[in-house]
């Protein structure tokens, strides 16, 4: 039978179905699993009772790690885990329907967007207690447009240029400090038969890291922020300059990036086919345990002297209390616990690809990589959150992903590209 409106009906049902299925099933299983919580009734007093916890920690390692952390909270916590991407895609419907008391989310613009829509509970009072444990940059990343805090940072993972120590040692490569040194090193690697820079952009977001870094090194953090907020023109020569610098290193990057997943690109680094890789610290997940100690990184090289290497791209993950929370006191108590060094130490042990946000968190158990990450971020003047977290989600997903992919396919036509981006940006930011 013919159904003339097939796509329409399909789409709407899919949206509803996904939302329902994604949240109903885990909720049910969590409800069943919740019966055997060990710490039941252990808390008492104010903030007692069950707290529901909407989690996007769906991968095995983080899922286990967060469960261990929550088990020691002294509160009765019901965890509803949802697949990471599904959680993100359904966030609007989730927050409008029946969200959990506490839910996992991202710092920066992504948080501010939902706080401004009235989906989050103001937790400034929690911050008066925990504020001393966090750097100013962390607090700024947790603050909404109205100056109140809506977010508790849990961990972060810096982006940098990753490499294998053994490769650098055997070939006598030096860590490049500047753009020119970076290019010179890439040329040397190429001459040595390596593909200098790994690149996998099939999912559309990994290349954003390179764009962000070139932009922040060339034009500075403030320009990055206002460009992402839609306040600058993409046809500005400053933006074109970013793309033309990128063109300079493209011959050294793995070709066919749009067909390669970030995991495949990481495998090429593991296999010593490529020399360097601009990615987040989660690249470590792709390294077998025996090679983990061989993984190292250096900060993205300096381009403009006045900006040096003062910005670090380090997306922060954390928690928010939903506006519809049933147990607000319990939720605040839980996020306060999650902000504590104890909770963060516990998590860092279970999932060593991240770094705790709390200044007092114990770093003695850290791997060399984690220690270095903590230093890098601690000394940074600015912490950016990554392109798709620093701007509107609709702009990032429907404009920037296709645009950067088309840049990698056809790097020559920068003028046409930025014109298209600017045209779409205008309609999106004014809607």
């Amino acid at each position: 039978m013919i159904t003339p409106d097939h796509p329409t009906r399909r789409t709407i049902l899919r949206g509803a179905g996904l939302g329902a299925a994604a949240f109903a099933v885990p909720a049910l299983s969590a409800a069943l699993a919740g019966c055997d919580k060990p710490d039941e009734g252990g808390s008492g007093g104010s903030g007692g009772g069950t707290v529901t916890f909407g989690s996007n920690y769906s991968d095995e390692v983080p899922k286990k790690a967060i469960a261990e952390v929550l088990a020691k909270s002294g509160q009765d916590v019901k965890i509803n885990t949802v697949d990471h991407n599904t959680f993100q895609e359904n966030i609007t419907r989730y927050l409008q329907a029946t969200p959990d008391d506490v839910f996992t989310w991202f710092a920066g613009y992504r948080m501010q967007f939902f706080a401004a829509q009235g989906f989050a509970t103001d937790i400034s009072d929690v911050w008066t207690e925990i504020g001393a444990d966090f750097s100013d940059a962390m607090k700024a990343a947790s603050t909404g447009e109205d100056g109140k805090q809506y977010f508790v940072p849990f961990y972060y993972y810096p982006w940098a240029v990753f490499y294998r120590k053994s490769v650098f040692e055997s070939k006598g490569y030096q860590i490049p400090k500047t753009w020119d040194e970076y290019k010179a090193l890439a040329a040397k690697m190429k001459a040595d038969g390596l593909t200098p820079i790994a690149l996998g952009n099939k999912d559309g977001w990994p290349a954003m890291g390179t764009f962000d870094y070139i932009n922040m090194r060339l034009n500075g953090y403030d320009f990055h922020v206002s460009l992402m907020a839609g306040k600058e023109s993409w046809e500005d020569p400053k933006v074109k300059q970013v793309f033309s610098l990128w063109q300079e290193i493209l011959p050294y990057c793995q070709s066919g990036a749009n067909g390669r997943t970030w995991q495949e690109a990481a495998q090429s680094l593991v296999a010593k086919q490529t020399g360097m890789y601009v990615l987040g610290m989660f690249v470590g997940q792709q390294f077998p345990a025996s090679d983990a100690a061989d993984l190292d990184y250096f900060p993205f090289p300096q381009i403009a002297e006045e900006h040096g290497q003062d910005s670090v791209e380090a997306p922060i993950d954390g928690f928010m209390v939903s506006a519809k929370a049933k147990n607000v006191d319990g939720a605040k108590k839980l996020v306060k616990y999650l902000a504590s060094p104890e909770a963060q130490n516990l998590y860092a042990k279970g999932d060593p690809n991240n770094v705790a946000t709390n200044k007092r968190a114990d770093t003695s158990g850290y791997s060399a990589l984690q220690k270095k990450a903590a230093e890098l971020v601690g000394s940074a003047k600015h912490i950016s959150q990554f392109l798709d977290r620093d701007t509107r989600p609709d702009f990032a997903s429907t404009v920037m992903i296709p645009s950067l992919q088309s840049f990698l396919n056809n790097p020559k036509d920068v003028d046409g590209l930025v014109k298209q981006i600017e045209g779409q940006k205008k309609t999106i930011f004014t809607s």
Partner: protein
Amino acid sequence: MTITARPPAPRTTPRRRRVIRFTPRDIAVIGLLLGIPVVLDVALIWGPTLASVALSFTSWNGVTDIKPVGLDNYHNIVSNYPPFWPAVRHNLVWLLFLGVVATPLGLFFAVLLDKQIRFSRFYQTAIYLPVVLSLAVIGFIAQLLYSRDYGAVNAALGRTDNPIDWIGDPSINLWSVLVLVGWRHVGYVMLLYLAGLKAVDPSLKEAAAIDGANEAQTFFRVVFPALRPVNILILVITVIEALRAFDVVYAINRGRNGLELLSVLITDNIVGEASRIGFGSAIAVILLLISLIFIVTYLLQVFREDRA
């Protein structure tokens, strides 16, 4: 028509009396049997369709107030949304490929298998197998086959130094995917035609043979016209499959970078975190209009033939 308990008037014919004699229970049953489908139809098909059309003239992020914007969405789609025209083109290429290559191939296999060749059960199963594979599996297979660095196709071709980027190169990835899609579609079409061929009266073929027709003539002049009901069904299925194509490209690379399709653009804008619901609805309406062109043509054809 009303129900009445009055004794029938003498003038009424027996036929009419029979019509009047609906008991309240009959009415309730009819009302229920017709009413439920109508309610479902309105609630699940017409309601959302009209809602989409209405939303397509607005700007809405799913949270704040709905703001009417007139034809802005449509204007932006055609002039300020680079993925749109490629998506339209890809849908049409998809339709042409299924209609011109995959469907005839399915028919060809069906005819061969209908000849009771040896191992026909095995071939039948092998060709039909892809139809039952889930989209996740197909996406996974695509990755295994087409991956530039680790894929089976490049390994088989010996292209390890300068590998072909089957999925990442936007000038060829549509064709890579269409091969997979065709692989699935052929099995589906074959099964339907096989059923149709079994239903064709063998005496027709015998009669044609007695009249001196060769095999090709028998097929094109006698058997194929006798398959008309199946042909129409398959035409409809082919059009629907081409216009609703979604799962394979979404599983492979979320329908980006050369694999844009209208259905994917709708999903990207509405379902994802983006929530450009008005904009996505406008694309949905455009897809609806394209579907209507095919459906109206088809219905006109059917009505004309029925009348003749």
